[in-house]
């Protein structure tokens, strides 16, 4: 099974290297990496590294962060329908980021700027509400309450998002609407670097989780009886997934369906073991979003579609197929 993960790795590497070659101007990989031509004269290299690579890297980061968050939520809640979208975590992150954008918030903390911070605060806030709801009724979290709570919180947050939009002026509203559709048009490396800090923290958290997720997905009490520290695992998992989702949303807006379909597709290839599912989902999530973004920027060229529209159009039917397959 480990070779399947290596396969996903090859796919991701190929996607990062080849996707920047596609676009309005044809460029060649060999020319872009040809060190004998001075960079100032190497048009291929300039297009590759300045115009296109940031966007592809953003897609890779966002796709892998959303996919890993989906894996973690599904295992922790023992529910295949859990994802950053269905739990309202993406909506919380979107609200946070949009408020930071609309009200021009300008501050930073530990090198993280306002938009990713507000986005993380929003995702953690939404998750805290949903999680609090599900734990308040009884000891232990009820997966059903969590999902219903997620849907409700998502609807509530959408209303607040609409309210913030209503307060914004006309051009601001247009920008917000475009942003909410999900777009990877990052234009430079700096927003990627800003998102990289919270993502690195999330990766470190995710790295500790796979075996505990296996045991918890079979039952939290039997996991506890085998020596898993449930409370600590839940805390690490929820904070890491909120950080990753927050960072992804701050970079690209709420790109839907990646967090729910990628883990399921990956499990078809590598099985259920999270030591394989988590890294494979990170790799495939990145490749999947790079592919979707490639479609988004070429299908009606020279116009570019927001990538969120493409992921929803591909992801919706795939998700329905997965539902039928299970039933």
């Amino acid at each position, binding site marked *: 099974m480990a070779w399947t993960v290596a396969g996903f790795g090859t796919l991701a590497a190929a996607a990062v290297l080849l996707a920047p070659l596609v676009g309005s101007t044809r460029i060649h990989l060999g020319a872009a990496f040809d060190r004998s031509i001075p960079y100032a004269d190497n048009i291929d290299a300039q297009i590759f590294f300045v115009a296109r690579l940031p966007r592809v890297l953003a897609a890779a980061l966002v796709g892998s962060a959303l996919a890993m968050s989906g894996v973690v939520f599904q295992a922790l809640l023992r529910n295949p329908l859990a994802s950053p979208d269905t739990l309202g975590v993406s909506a919380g992150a979107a609200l946070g980021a949009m408020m930071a954008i609309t009200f021009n918030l300008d501050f930073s903390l530990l090198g993280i700027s306002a938009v990713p911070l507000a986005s993380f605060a929003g995702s953690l806030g939404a998750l805290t509400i949903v999680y609090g709801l599900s734990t308040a009724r009884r000891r232990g979290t009820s997966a059903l309450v969590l999902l219903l709570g997620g849907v409700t919180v998502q609807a509530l947050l959408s209303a607040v998002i609409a309210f913030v939009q209503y307060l914004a002026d006309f051009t601001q509203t247009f920008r917000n609407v475009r942003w909410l559709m999900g777009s990877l048009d990052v234009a430079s490396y700096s927003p990627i670097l800003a998102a990289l800090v919270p993502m690195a923290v999330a990766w470190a958290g995710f790295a500790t989780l796979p*075996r505990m997720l296996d045991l918890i997905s079979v039952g939290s009490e*039997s996991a506890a009886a085998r020596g898993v520290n449930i409370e600590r695992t839940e805390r690490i998992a929820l904070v890491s997934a909120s950080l990753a989702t927050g960072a992804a949303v701050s970079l690209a807006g709420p790109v839907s369906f990646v967090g729910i379909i990628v883990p399921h597709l990956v499990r078809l290839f590598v099985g259920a073991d999270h030591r394989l599912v988590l890294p494979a989902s990170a790799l495939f999530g990145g490749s999947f979003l790079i592919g979707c973004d490639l479609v988004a920027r070429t299908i009606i060229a020279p116009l570019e579609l927001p990538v969120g529209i493409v992921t929803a159009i591909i992801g919706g039917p795939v998700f329905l197929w997965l539902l039928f397959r299970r039933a």
Partner: protein
Amino acid sequence: MLEVTDITFAYSTLRAVPQRVLDDVSLQVQRGSVVGLLGPNGSGKTTLLKIIAGVLKAPSGRVAIDGQAIEQLTRRDLARRLAVVPQETQTTFDFTVMDMVLMGRYPHLGAFQLEGASDQAIARDALAATGTAAFEARPFATLSGGEMQRIVIASALAQASDMLLLDEPTAALDLGYQFEITALLRRLNRERGTTMIVSTHDLNLAAALCERVVLLKQGRVIAHGTTEETLTAANIRLLYDIDADVQYHPRAGHLTVVPVGRSR
């Protein structure tokens, strides 16, 4: 020896008066013995098993294994001493039977350590002991209820502890599987000397399997002793308000309980 001393427990609720689920519960389980935990719904059987397993913490009282309080053991140490078999196990994802059994090795492995050849061998041995070696590569979710329960027992055996806590292990099974699981547990006790605490509603299962029984009602131990002395018509009436015939059955080789009607 497992010693439970004066355990009192109440679930914290939003209501004003917390309901005591366990009230001064004490019991002893000798190494190598099989003890049945009997009592009506809500009598505190499952809660008591969770406290013994260290999943719940009791505010007062003490659980000790061979003289050592379980709070002094780490979670992993405790999991190496005793394993839990829940009533039912439902998986969210398509784990194979081997995946499920290898999860029992968790307390024996380091944080990033993968299962090695010895873990695989222990898992295969556990599968063989439960008669499920043929299922090794099957997806767990495709098995029948009785097969699943045998795999879960195998996974508890792979944990390599010498004590098993079983919470109504046959409740979800039909008569044939109930019989099969009972026979399996008897054999494991006889051949491996595994100590077992079995909570059950099935008085005949308790009579067939357990040397001693503990009767719980409303969180209190109302009787505790050998099965012959304790599983009596009078005690069954106390526990369930049921009038029952309790007789030694020569062909079965143990006591049998036939409920006759509501008492009073």
